[in-house]
């Protein structure tokens, strides 16, 4: 059987991470941050996200009422600060519950097979 092409793995990996990005962004925005520091904070925790994905995502989440933003001057530059809205906090809790449930299900499916194989 031919080996799986690296780009197939890369595409699936990106797809998997994309689903988790919203959760990571919402998790980081429990405290107010602006785009660049948010990006660096996510990268420092192993969730690298390029600016072309992050900013449109932030705008979409703000349009959906999950985030609120405010333009403020800091270090002599105008920056847009984002934080979770009240609804956003509630949504984050719901998504975390869902995430844990998915994690448990996957552990049950993949973990059982792995242990069975071992």
């Amino acid at each position: 059987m031919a080996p799986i092409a690296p780009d197939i793995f890369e595409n699936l990996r990106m797809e998997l991470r994309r689903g988790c990005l919203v959760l990571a962004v919402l998790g980081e925005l429990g405290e107010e941050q602006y785009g660049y520091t948010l990006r660096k904070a996510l990268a420092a925790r192993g969730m690298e996200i390029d600016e072309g994905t992050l900013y449109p995502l932030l705008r979409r989440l703000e349009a959906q009422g999950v985030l609120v933003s405010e333009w403020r001057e800091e270090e002599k530059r105008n920056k847009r600060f984002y934080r979770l809205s009240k609804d956003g906090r509630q949504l984050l809790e719901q998504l975390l519950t869902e995430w844990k449930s998915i994690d448990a299900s996957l552990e049950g499916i993949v973990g059982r097979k792995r242990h069975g194989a071992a």
Partner: protein
Amino acid sequence: MELLDRYLAAVRFWLPKGQRQDILAELTDDIRAEVEDRESGLGRKLTDAELTELLQRRGSPYRVACRYLPQRTVIGPAFFPVYLLILKAIGLFYLLPWLAAWLFMVAFLPSYRAAHPGWEVLLPLVELVQRAVNAFAFATAGVWLAQRSAERTGIVDRWDRTWNPVLPAESKDPLRANRGEWMGQIFGDLVFVLYWVSVFRLPAIPDLRLEFAPILAHTFYWPVLILALASAALSIWNVVRPRWTRRRLFVWLGIEIVEIAQMAILLSAGPLVLLAIPQATPDKVELLAGWVNFAVRLMLVGILVVAAVDVFRAVRLLFKLRSTAAAGAAPAAVRRAV
């Protein structure tokens, strides 16, 4: 930072008007923050080359702006295959015959070339492009309207247990001839044979004599008749025993190749139909004869194209039969026949 300003100006061009300033302000801040970060790490200003590399990594201004724009398509993914099918049908049944007819007139009708001297002979191609653009525009608008009304009326969202399409047939055996197609072929062949041997005749038109030229009436009389009878025999064979065999595929291939050869010879010959109208002037008779012969030749081109397609089908089936036999998957009856 002129380079950065130019980059941002280029991004600005593609952004939606209402959000332009907002997006640009945030993007500018993000890029400047990254530049400052890099500069503080290096302990010096970025060179133009380094700044260019940083901007290139972010993507072209168009790509950057695209990420902020909503995804828009005129034809959605569900309707796209239908749209593609319509476009193909337009190409195959409208534009291609049009082009073939034009090529035929240029190649075989001296009167057409005389009427369109020099570059004028290419002018119809401009018309063809216009026709293609119009046809594609109508197709796009039509499918868009169908898609929009389907979504607005909610037809595409409706489903209940009473709405059951026919279950897909079991995987079709590719080596089984389609009986309907070959019964149609028998009918066509028999009608042609009866006409060819003068059992059927076209209704006579007063004061007009229409007859085949000697090449058709004499030289090709028997070859055409024998080929039509062979085709009818093959069709009957296919209806009675629909599963293709190697021998029968070679017979089909032979018939189609001979048909292509006949058509090619006839197409390169002179007039195929002779016309006589005693009351008309010779130039009018000549003009009418030209059009009648043009129509006959067009029909022969059609037959030739169908025969070429059949050759392709027969060769493909031969390969399929060989691979099936090699895999040992063919039923015993087929293996016996092969």
